């Protein structure tokens, strides 16, 4: 089974080799970039990382072995194939000792190259699936325990939309950054629908290779491909009578979009390697963190498929735009992790809450959950204080708090609370845990005025 869509960097100083290899990989579905030297590859790494690297050993300037070491420092789990000429097998062995996953002598036998790429892609797919399963497990714990925690107006509006559209069969597209809780909203849509007694089947399309995704969605008959020892039902089949939730829909290939479009149009499909039509009846809820309109302009997302899945759109704002949700979410996770660890923790100090509400939350609710889990583990007393959150500053993510006096911090914190509550003093006071009169006094003292 050969996965595709993997970001691959080909590094070789010979243009003919570089371009020829890139052309072969692109036809197989890999996303390929090329670099003509070790130095140029290292520069490329500063911008972004790749899933697979094909590196020529012998290059002028920085050679393949040096580049291999540099890649491994920057990306320890990088998958690397070294390319050697005949007669330099010893160097290839050295490369393997330094962490290369495989080596291949040029010119390659087409079958050998296919097998090596398939093996690496399978390794990557397994790793990604492992991560995705762990995340799914954590997300499911969230919904099965308490549901969605939120106080902000933005989230209240989303709840109203959910109530309104849940009973219909209309496809829903949920947009929002990674970690905002798209699957929770999808589950809520399912729970409030007339199909709530049916299955809720979720699949993260981003963590799957194209071949794996196809097999996961459509299922397969026995013997459909190497390793298909028995027939298997796909998610399209499992979701019949319920809801199919496809997360990271923006990551699927245009070809897979056509396949899904056909299923949505015809409400039937065939398993891989099968000839029988299977009827299916599910409500599609999809989600993405990508800008699909931008992908359409780039020709990476089909317009007809976009209009089919984007009948109702729900946009979940990032946590930094609804900071009033931070406190209730933090309390919710604190309570859960206190219970799980058996620690008796009463709450967060005002300083700790200030740090949490001032933080930028690039990883959104999921990051807050992880932060609270870590804070509970680190906690020594009955309250989570600034000490337990010290690691947030060290994370390298933007944090609005610098070295401040207590007075400066209080002003900044009051200001932030008022900004998030749209200068509604009563709401801001509630969020800050003081009464309205106290907050009004502080506003006067610090001469804070509505902008």
């Amino acid at each position, binding site marked *: *089974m050969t996965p595709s869509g993997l970001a691959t960097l080909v590094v070789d100083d010979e243009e003919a080799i570089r371009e*020829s290899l890139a052309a072969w990989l692109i036809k*197989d579905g890999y996303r390929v970039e090329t670099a003509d030297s070790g130095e140029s590859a290292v520069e490329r790494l500063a911008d972004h990382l790749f899933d697979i690297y094909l590196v020529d050993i012998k290059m002028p300037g920085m050679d393949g072995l040096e580049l291999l070491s540099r890649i491994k420092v920057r990306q320890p789990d990088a998958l690397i194939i070294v390319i050697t000429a005949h007669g330099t097998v010893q160097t290839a062995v050295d490369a393997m000792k330094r962490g290369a996953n495989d080596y291949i002598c040029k010119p390659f*036998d087409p079958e050998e190259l296919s*097998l090596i790429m398939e093996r690496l892609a399978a390794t990557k797919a397994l790793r990604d699936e492992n991560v995705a399963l762990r995340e799914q497990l954590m997300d499911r714990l969230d919904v099965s325990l308490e549901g969605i925690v939120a106080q902000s107006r933005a989230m209240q509006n989303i709840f109203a939309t959910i109530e309104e559209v849940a009973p219909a069969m209309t496809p829903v597209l949920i947009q929002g950054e990674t970690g905002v809780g798209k699957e929770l909203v999808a589950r809520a849509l399912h729970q409030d629908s007339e199909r709530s007694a049916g299955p809720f089947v979720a699949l993260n399309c981003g963590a799957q290779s194209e071949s794996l995704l196809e097999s996961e969605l459509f299922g397969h008959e026995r013997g459909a491909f190497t390793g298909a020892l028995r027939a298997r039902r796909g998610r399209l089949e499992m979701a019949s009578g319920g809801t199919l939730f496809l997360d990271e829909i923006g990551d699927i290939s245009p*070809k897979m979009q*056509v396949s899904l479009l*056909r299923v949505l*149009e015809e409400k039937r499909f065939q398993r891989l390697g099968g000839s029988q039509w299977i009827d299916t009846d599910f409500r599609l809820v999809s989600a993405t963190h990508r800008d699909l309109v931008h992908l359409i302009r780039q020709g990476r997302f089909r317009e007809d498929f976009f209009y089919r899945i984007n009948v109702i759109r729900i946009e979940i704002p990032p946590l930094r735009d609804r900071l009033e949700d931070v406190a209730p979410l933090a309390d919710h996770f604190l309570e859960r992790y206190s219970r799980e660890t058996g620690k008796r923790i009463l709450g967060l100090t005002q300083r700790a809450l200030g740090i949490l509400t001032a933080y930028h939350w690039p990883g959104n609710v999921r990051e807050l959950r992880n932060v609270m889990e870590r804070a509970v583990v680190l906690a020594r007393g009955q309250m989570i204080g600034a000490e337990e959150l010290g690691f947030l500053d060290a994370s390298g993510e933007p944090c609005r708090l610098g070295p401040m006096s207590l007075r400066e911090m209080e002003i900044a914190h009051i200001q932030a609370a008022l900004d998030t509550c749209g200068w509604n003093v009563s709401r801001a006071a509630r969020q800050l845990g003081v009464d309205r009169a106290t907050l009004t006094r502080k506003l006067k003292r610090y001469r804070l005025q509505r902008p």
Partner: protein
Amino acid sequence: MTTSLDPVPAQVEQGPAIALVRLIPLGPVDDLSCQVVAANLQALMDLAADILPPFPVLPDAFMEARRQYDAVQLINALARAFPGPTLGLGLIGSDIATPILTYVLGESQLGGRMAVVSTYRLTDAGGRRKLERLVKVSLHEMAHVLGLGHCWQPQCLMRSPRNVAQLDELPMAFCDTCQYEIARRVRNLVREIRSTPDRH
């Protein structure tokens, strides 16, 4: 069953048939092979093909050390010799390879105009089997020229065969999705060729 996604043959939709592919024998290639490939391009991909007289093989494309022709150079030479929007498929009896692979059965420009297919490694079987293989490789490469990548459906001609035995196992057909994409892209090609004043 007809659905909104079923392709309409491009040539039916857009007027009288015109040649969309030039089939170019590179050196001696038997007429039957050319005719069978042309007929199948028309039947399975809606690509009407003109068979041209043999075109001399570029001697510069011969890699002396490997005793093979460089498929990439052949394709580049064909693209220079036959400009314009019409696609081209070179058929050659000699063995071909690319700078990176020890051999290829065919090579093509993904989303470009030209492809080349060699009969050299397809001839260990008799007449009909050999022709079937030639047609399969030709259709596969021309689908690449139309911009299609490899497909993971087990029963699709765009699945990448790793060797000739796997090529024999592939059906002489594309899966629904690839067939749909081919039809869409052929329609665009017809439009492009019709709107070009000097097509050839």
